[in-house]
């Protein structure tokens, strides 16, 4: 009975994806690959997702280490804040970012005066992606740090390592695969983001918006090849995550 119930859910996940993969003909895929607009869109998506992941890593890994190791007042609140974007509907996140980073807000205005504009600009795409994907990276990195016994770090310190040396020679090598897996998942989440980006920066179009655009303008046949290409990218990333994530998480 348990197996039957589980099989129904698995079928529900796999079925639509297999159906989509078989919808695209080789010639359709070939022409999609040669489509300059789709090529530019996928390149933009990959570039923005990579930038968002890099920013999430630079700011999120130290935060994840702090949350894994330190006990301080407000830690639980901080953990909740980090996870907040997960429960916020993405169009709502888009509107919130628009209000926060738009030219008429204090922050957005100040940044615009420095030449950094978000709404209808590429940084808006990165901001949307960062907002939804950062929690994934921080959670993954925090879990990876938690699995590294603090006593290993104490031993390393007693053997002469500074705090940074110990982090570099012990903590990072041991938590590295978990952090990398979190980073790849965050990158994949960025690639698939639609809801917040459609509000912040409709143009230039990332792949998810281009697929939506073609579906609403030209119907299913025009959207399927692009959708299949994006699905293939997602599956490749998924395979990569399975390859790098720590054995005990598999």
């Amino acid at each position, binding site marked *: 009975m348990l197996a039957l119930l589980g099989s129904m859910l698995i079928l529900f996940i796999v079925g639509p994806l297999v159906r989509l993969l078989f919808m695209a003909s080789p010639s359709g895929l070939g022409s999609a690959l040669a489509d300059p607009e789709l090529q530019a869109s996928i390149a933009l998506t990959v570039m923005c997702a990579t930038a968002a992941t890099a920013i999430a890593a630079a700011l999120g890994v130290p935060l994840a280490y702090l949350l894994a190791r330190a006990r301080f007042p407000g830690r639980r609140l901080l953990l909740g804040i980090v996870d907040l974007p997960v429960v916020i509907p993405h169009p709502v996140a888009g509107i919130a970012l628009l209000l926060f980073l738009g030219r008429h807000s204090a922050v957005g205005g100040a940044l615009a005066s420095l030449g950094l504009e978000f709404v209808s600009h590429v940084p808006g795409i990165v901001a949307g992606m960062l907002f939804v994907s950062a929690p994934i990276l921080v959670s993954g990195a925090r879990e990876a740090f938690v699995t590294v016994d603090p006593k290993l770090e*104490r031993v390393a*310190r*007693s053997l002469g390592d500074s705090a940074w040396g110990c982090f570099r020679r012990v903590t990072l090598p041991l938590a590295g695969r978990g952090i990398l897996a979190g980073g790849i998942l965050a990158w994949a989440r960025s690639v698939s983001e639609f809801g917040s980006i459609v509000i912040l920066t409709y143009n230039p179009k990332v792949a998810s918006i281009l697929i939506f655009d073609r579906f609403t303008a030209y119907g299913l046949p025009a959207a399927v090849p692009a959708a299949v290409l994006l699905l293939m990218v997602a599956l490749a990333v998924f395979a990569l995550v399975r390859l790098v994530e720590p054995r005990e998480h598999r």
Partner: protein
Amino acid sequence: MIRLDGLRVRVGSFDLVDISFEVPTGGYALIIGPTGSGKTTLLDAIAGHAPLLAGRVLAHGRDVSSLPPEQRRLGIVYQQYHLFPHLSVGENIAYGLRYAAGDGSEATATRVRALAGLLGITALLERGVRGLSGGEQQRVAIARALAPRPSVLLLDEPFAAVDPATRTILRRELRVLHEAEGITTLQVTHDFDDALRLGDMVAVMAEGHIVQQGRPEDVFRYPNSAFVARFVGTGNVVAGQVERTGEPGADGRFAARFVSGTLELHVIADREGLAHAVIRPEDLLLSSTPLPGSIRNRIEVVVERVEHLGPVVQVQLAAGRDLVAAVTTATASDLGLRPGVRVWLGLKATAVHLV
């Protein structure tokens, strides 16, 4: 030499209070105490991993209290050894050598080989640490801690994760290693056997305090409280009342009677009132007739239980209070000791230690 001078440490809601203790240069000292008494916290504080609220840690005269762990030159080996799982055995041992003065690849290799030879782990140097036995892990962890020639070695329950047979071997090896390296060593343990077999000095901890310190034999023979007596396994600990029967001597001590239920013993005391009598099982003499001579306490008792522990037999006696005596198997056989047998118990008044 390492000296702890009035240490006060707080970790969560747990406090270490007024910890003062000294291990002479080249000495081997142990901190013993039950689980939760603060032993590991104390080691962490000494090593610089738990902040001091008060007091000082002096290593060979140098105040290291405000130094970060990497500048204290104190080697530490934790209970679960904590070998770096991403490094080989050789790399683990060499870990701290990059910071050692005059380090070079040749010097590092020489030191690693020397320690591996001393600890009998040369064959393991190229291996990963996963799959090592508890004893092998311990040897690697000790070699790693000793490699950068720390001024003091701190050991946290080093025998807790190995079987009894390995423990015996490792204790012997550790003593030999300590003599070979001449390093000042401070070990924490919950096993007083470690103190008796390894230590020059011992301190007993309870609930964040040192409650007694001294030479292991003295602490074992003359515990200063019922807690210490029970913890170090001195033997019989009986609560009762001391009543004076004689005049005090020049040292202030006097002949007295110790009463606990129907058990009455002649004792030498230095105070009256409530007390615990601590009696070693070896000091309880058994015979089929009342023992002659200077023995003040002669009581007829009934054997309740006989337990053979190798060459020694533990005999539980009903003597108003339960007492345990230790005799040889030959004595047990000669006296025909078995449950229900009546024997005479002899105990010198001076063999009763009152706390």
